[in-house]
């Protein structure tokens, strides 16, 4: 199990290094297969570890394996170690399993793209970083992984580095994440300064023993929460995620839907002892999650870019996970993370098939009627959409409704508010998902769709994400390397939910419980009651979307509300006015008033004076040998006289 885990961690790193070092000695497709293969090797390692750990009793499932001392400062040592326990195993299997499928999909999607090798090296590097994050056996290694995934995300968002929007989006994501990283690092520093150890178990013991004052615990938990919010694109540090859709679609699926953005949820579950020692901050996490569900849901209602709709939906779904983690229902937080990884990756990849087919077009207004042209894609997209909307028996139903019922079991003003937010979220999810579905697949085929429908040869390859994959003839809708992973994800989106059937069969929850004991458990009656209401609301949302589409209208009518939503509630404008423009003004002011007159001019002045002094003394250099000799002689005489006088 330990061997399997190390293989899981190191295989993607080896893949990334191999592609980087081999450079142009290997062909593009070799690089793609090395990347895919290394991630699947990692998945095999994770699977072996999982089977072995599953055979152990629930109390003995946590294993810490130390390879060597990474840093040593006197008595203080930071070991290079991995933690293999039920939570990290779930994450490992999601990362390498879904990650492997997505990298495989990229083989078809990125074919013919410039710099494919760089892309695949980055993808393998990302998988390694994410594994480092979830497997790191102490706080510092968690922080290392946290930073590395931010870097990988930056590199992949900015993959199309000739597009200014992609570069801007990459920078935005990096800066937003840096805010979170800094807050999280400060939280850890405070914790370490109080406890003097990096180890998870020792820190959690001290945190839950109540030795530290609540104010300190609040500050530590707040630092971690800000880190989690930034990484998981929750309010108010969410503005980077929609822009991050500038990256290639598989990147959006892997990093900005299935794995990296859920790292915040993982962090809360992993450090739940710290959050439990600071209940106010934990409730804040739940409230932020609840508000994000609504805000992201309503913004998704008016977006026209297929990827942005799914991106806002990701924010909204992570809001559910935060809500669950914030009220202490860790099992359901992880379960929704697990099912969401499948159906959201599925939606993104299906969207990628469409974008690939339409040669880079992402605007849903130019799509329509794709149902008859792309029946396979239509089927898998519909599965993903139904799973996202939480329609039984698909996976989203089991996980999302569990979260809402946990909030109901929590009770009190907070609990009921969260239930309300969750239920409204269910309505919104149904509405925006099926607005997208109807716009893309139903109605009359648009000109663009007709243009790409019949002729499937070359000649259509234009646009930034060129659709040059057509030479790998698989299916009319795209190459097999794209369609197979999508199909596998569709299967898992359908069946993954059966790991938790409330009251009957809950192996997933018990699996997580051995690491993070839940604070609230809903009764079976609460479960089925909220499920009924949530499904009803989701159905209403779908019906609203359908009837609006039938009448040829959009869900949100023109008007002030729509304008506000189209500006994404003015978050970007607000940050621009609050931070960006004042700092630009200050920078310009400093340049004009300080740098140019004081620093630059004074340096020029010093140079001028030195040059003048130089040309003055240069006149002493006559070139006459005899005058030098005279100068030396006179000087010696003077020195002798001086020495004699002084003596």
């Amino acid at each position: 199990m330990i061997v399997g885990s190390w293989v899981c961690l190191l295989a993607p790193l080896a893949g990334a290094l191999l592609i980087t070092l081999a450079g142009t000695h290997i062909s593009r497709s070799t690089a793609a297969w090395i990347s895919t293969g290394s991630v699947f090797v990692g998945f095999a390692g994770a699977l072996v570890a999982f089977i072995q750990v599953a055979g152990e009793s629930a109390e003995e499932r946590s294993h810490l394996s130390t390879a060597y001392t990474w840093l040593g400062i006197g008595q203080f040592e930071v070991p290079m170690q991995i933690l293999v326990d039920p939570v990290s195993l779930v994450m490992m299997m999601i990362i390498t399993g879904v990650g492997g499928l997505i990298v495989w999909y990229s083989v078809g999607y990125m074919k013919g793209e410039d710099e494919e090798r760089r892309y695949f090296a980055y993808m393998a590097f990302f998988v390694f970083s994410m594994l480092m994050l979830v497997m790191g056996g102490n706080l510092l290694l968690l922080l290392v992984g946290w930073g590395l995934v931010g870097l990988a995300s930056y590199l992949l968002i900015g993959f199309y580095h000739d597009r200014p929007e992609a570069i801007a989006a990459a920078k935005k994501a990096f800066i937003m994440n840096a805010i979170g990283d800094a807050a999280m690092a400060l939280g850890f520093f405070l914790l370490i300064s109080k406890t003097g150890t990096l180890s998870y178990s020792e820190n959690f013991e001290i945190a839950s023993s109540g030795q530290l004052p609540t104010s300190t615990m609040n500050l530590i938990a707040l630092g971690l929460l800000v880190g989690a919010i930034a990484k998981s694109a929750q309010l108010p540090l969410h503005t980077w995620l929609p822009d991050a859709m500038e990256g290639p679609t598989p990147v959006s699926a892997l990093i900005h839907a299935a794995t990296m953005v859920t790292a915040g949820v993982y962090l809360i579950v992993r450090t739940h002892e710290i959050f439990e020692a600071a209940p106010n901050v934990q409730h804040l996490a739940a409230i932020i999650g609840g508000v994000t569900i609504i805000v992201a849901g309503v913004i998704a209602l008016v977006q026209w870019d297929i990827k942005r709709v799914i991106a806002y939906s990701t924010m909204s779904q992570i809001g559910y996970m935060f809500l669950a983690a914030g009220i202490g229902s860790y099992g359901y937080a992880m379960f929704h993370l697990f099912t969401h990884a499948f159906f959201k990756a599925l939606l993104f990849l299906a969207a990628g098939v469409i974008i690939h087919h339409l040669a880079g077009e992402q605007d849903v207004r130019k799509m329509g009627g794709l149902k008859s042209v792309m029946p396979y894609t239509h089927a898998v997209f519909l599965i993903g959409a139904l799973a996202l909307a939480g329609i039984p028996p698909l996976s989203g139903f089991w996980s999302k409704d569990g979260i809402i019922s946990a909030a109901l079991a929590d009770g009190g003003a907070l609990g009921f508010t969260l239930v309300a937010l969750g239920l409204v979220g269910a309505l919104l999810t149904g509405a925006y998902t099926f607005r997208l579905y109807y716009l893309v697949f139903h109605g009359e085929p648009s000109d663009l769709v007709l243009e790409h429908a019949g002729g499937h040869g070359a000649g259509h390859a234009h646009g930034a994400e060129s659709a040059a994959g057509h030479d790998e003839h698989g299916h009319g809708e795209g190459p097999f390397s794209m369609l197979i992973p999508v199909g596998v994800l569709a299967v898992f989106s359908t069946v993954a939910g059966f790991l938790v059937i409330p009251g009957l069969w809950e192996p997933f929850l018990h699996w997580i419980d051995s690491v993070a004991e839940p604070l609230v458990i809903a009764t079976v009656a609460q479960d089925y009651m909220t499920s009924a209401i949530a499904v009803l609301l989701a159905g209403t949302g779908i019906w609203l979307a359908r009837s609006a589409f039938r009448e040829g209208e959009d869900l949100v009518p023109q008007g002030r509300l729509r304008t506000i939503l189209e500006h994404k509630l003015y978050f970007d404008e607000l940050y621009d006015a609050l931070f960006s423009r004042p700092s630009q003004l200050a920078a310009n002011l400093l340049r004009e008033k300080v740098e140019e007159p004081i620093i630059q001019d004074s340096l020029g002045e010093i140079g001028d004076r030195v040059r003048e002094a130089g040309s003055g003394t240069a006149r002493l250099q006559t070139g006459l040998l005899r005058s030098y000799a005279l100068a030396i002689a006179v000087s010696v005489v003077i020195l002798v006289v001086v020495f004699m006088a002084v003596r």
Partner: protein
Amino acid sequence: MGPGTTWYIAVAAILFGIGTIGVILRRSPLIVLLSLEIMLNSSNLALVGFSRHFGTVDGQIFAICVMAVAAAEVVLGLGLIVAFTRRNMPLDVDAAMELRG
């Protein structure tokens, strides 16, 4: 016994002065070299004089070193004079003033 140390030092000082004046006033490089030799040898005389005065051989050893240096210096100096003539320059140290500032 012969003359005392004072006399040796006096002769050395006079020779050094003559040499210095020669270097400063004369323009022919040959004469300048000769004057330099006079200065070096005056210091040799002073060294040997003091050596005898104190009854040690240190000064004499230094004098031998100075002779070796003087020989090397003459080689360079004469080489310079040859270079002067090769470039058809007048034998005048004041003519070599390309390095003036």
